[in-house]
């Protein structure tokens, strides 16, 4: 039994360092995707919530497409399609060969999926904020930017956080798909370890437990953030408002 754990040691004999490097890449990819997905998701939510018919149509179509496609297919479309499109574009000027980085393709694909789901979350949150809040801001003499930054945004974040927390956990798991386009994330490093040690069960279980650990750490952190976002919000007060 001890022998098999030796496979996880760091150094030339063990796979510990490779797997740690893969885990780090997984974390980097998820963290790199997050801001892009959040900003895009928010913009799409604004488009869907706005007055402009075309923007609304675009937002709805965007959400429908990237919520409905399998994540793996989105990844392939971005990776191969991006490769082809970029190559054609480059060929207009020169005939150098370009290769789309798997990391960037993964980031874009996961970001598209994340932003589609996030726009739903933001839209739901936007609609829970009564119109009177923005009007009250104006009545106080705040300009539009101040109204958004000081009045709407803090409440929006509070309502959106639980949904966004879920999306983060989904994103963390979805990063495993990039292993298929040969990016050296946790799962791919595990594949490599398996193909040379012939211990699939042990290594895949280890990978699963690492993903699980990342989820648990994230959940704890997110709960702390959520609790903090609700400071100053009295339960009874919010109920009275709903009635």
């Amino acid at each position, binding site marked *: 039994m001890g022998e098999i754990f030796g496979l996880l040691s760091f150094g030339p004999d063990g796979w510990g360092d490779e797997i740690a490097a893969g885990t780090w890449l997984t974390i980097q990819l998820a963290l790199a995707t997050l801001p892009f997905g959040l900003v895009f998701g928010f913009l799409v939510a604004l488009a869907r919530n706005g007055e402009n018919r075309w923007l609304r149509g675009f937002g709805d179509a965007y959400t*429908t*497409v990237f*919520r*409905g*496609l*399998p*994540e*793996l*297919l989105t990844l*392939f*479309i971005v990776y*191969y*399609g991006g490769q*082809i499109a970029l190559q054609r574009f480059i060929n207009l000027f020169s005939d150098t060969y370009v290769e789309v980085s798997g990391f960037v393709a993964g980031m874009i694909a996961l970001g598209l999926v994340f932003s589609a789901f996030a726009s739903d979350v933001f839209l739901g949150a936007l609609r829970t904020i009564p119109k009177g809040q923005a009007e009250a801001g104006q009545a106080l003499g705040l300009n539009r930017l101040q109204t958004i930054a000081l009045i709407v945004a803090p409440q929006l974040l509070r309502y959106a956080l639980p949904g966004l927390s879920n999306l983060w*956990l989904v994103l963390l*798991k*979805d*990063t*495993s*798909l990039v*292993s*298929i386009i040969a990016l050296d994330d946790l*799962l791919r490093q*595990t*594949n490599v370890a*398996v193909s040379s040690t*012939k*211990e*699939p*069960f042990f290594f*895949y*279980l280890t*990978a*699963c437990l690492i*993903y*699980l650990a990342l*989820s*648990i750490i994230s959940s704890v952190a997110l709960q702390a953030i959520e609790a903090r976002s609700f400071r100053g919000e009295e339960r009874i007060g919010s109920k009275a408002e709903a009635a």
Partner: protein
Amino acid sequence: MDFELLARYGPRMLEGLFVTVQLVTLSVVIGGALSLPVAFARLGKNRWLSRFAFCYIYFFRGTPLLAQVFLVYYGAGQFRAELEAVGLWWFFRDAFNCAVFTFTLNTSAYQAEILRGVIKAIPRGQFEAAHAAGLSPFATYFKVILPQAFLIGLRPYGNEIILMIKGSAIASVVTVFDLMGTTRLAFARSFDFQVYLWAALLYLAIVETLRRVWDRLEIRMTRHLRPADANTLRTNGQKQFQT
């Protein structure tokens, strides 16, 4: 649109679509059956059963589906001798079976969690009333609780089926020729990117159809919860009878 390409790979992709439907149907139905004992174990009084169910649910929800598929498919290969000894090897040697097996376990965890959520959402009085009426626990669940739970759970169940449809694309990674698998094959042979776009349209069509059917279903199943003159009220733009 390249019709020659469509003629060559279209039929095969439709066969793949059929495999996808089989994969999802089998997994969701068997997983649904399996989710009942898991959810009841989780909700039940037995501390160890409840803990076991918690770990089961946490594991399958907290780790990537792709890693789970690898764990089962390649892990089973490692235990070939043992599986042959118990006469189960014929099952696990087939990639399709492994995919169904993994998806079933995965969706049963998600469905158990949905079930737990909706059962907890049902007022305690319903349990007490059933108890007072002298119903057995079995009858209480099947005659009183589950029919109500079904209504609350309709939307999350629909989302879970959609997640399964999208997730099933992962089976293509372990050589199952579902819609994604046949598409990848077509791409590998033709190097024509549009096959991915066809697959995208097919996936979107299924997911959107399901979503719309679900919307209808929800409207129909909640018809007793709406006031008879809800429509006239809505056109008046006033809620006259609200207290």
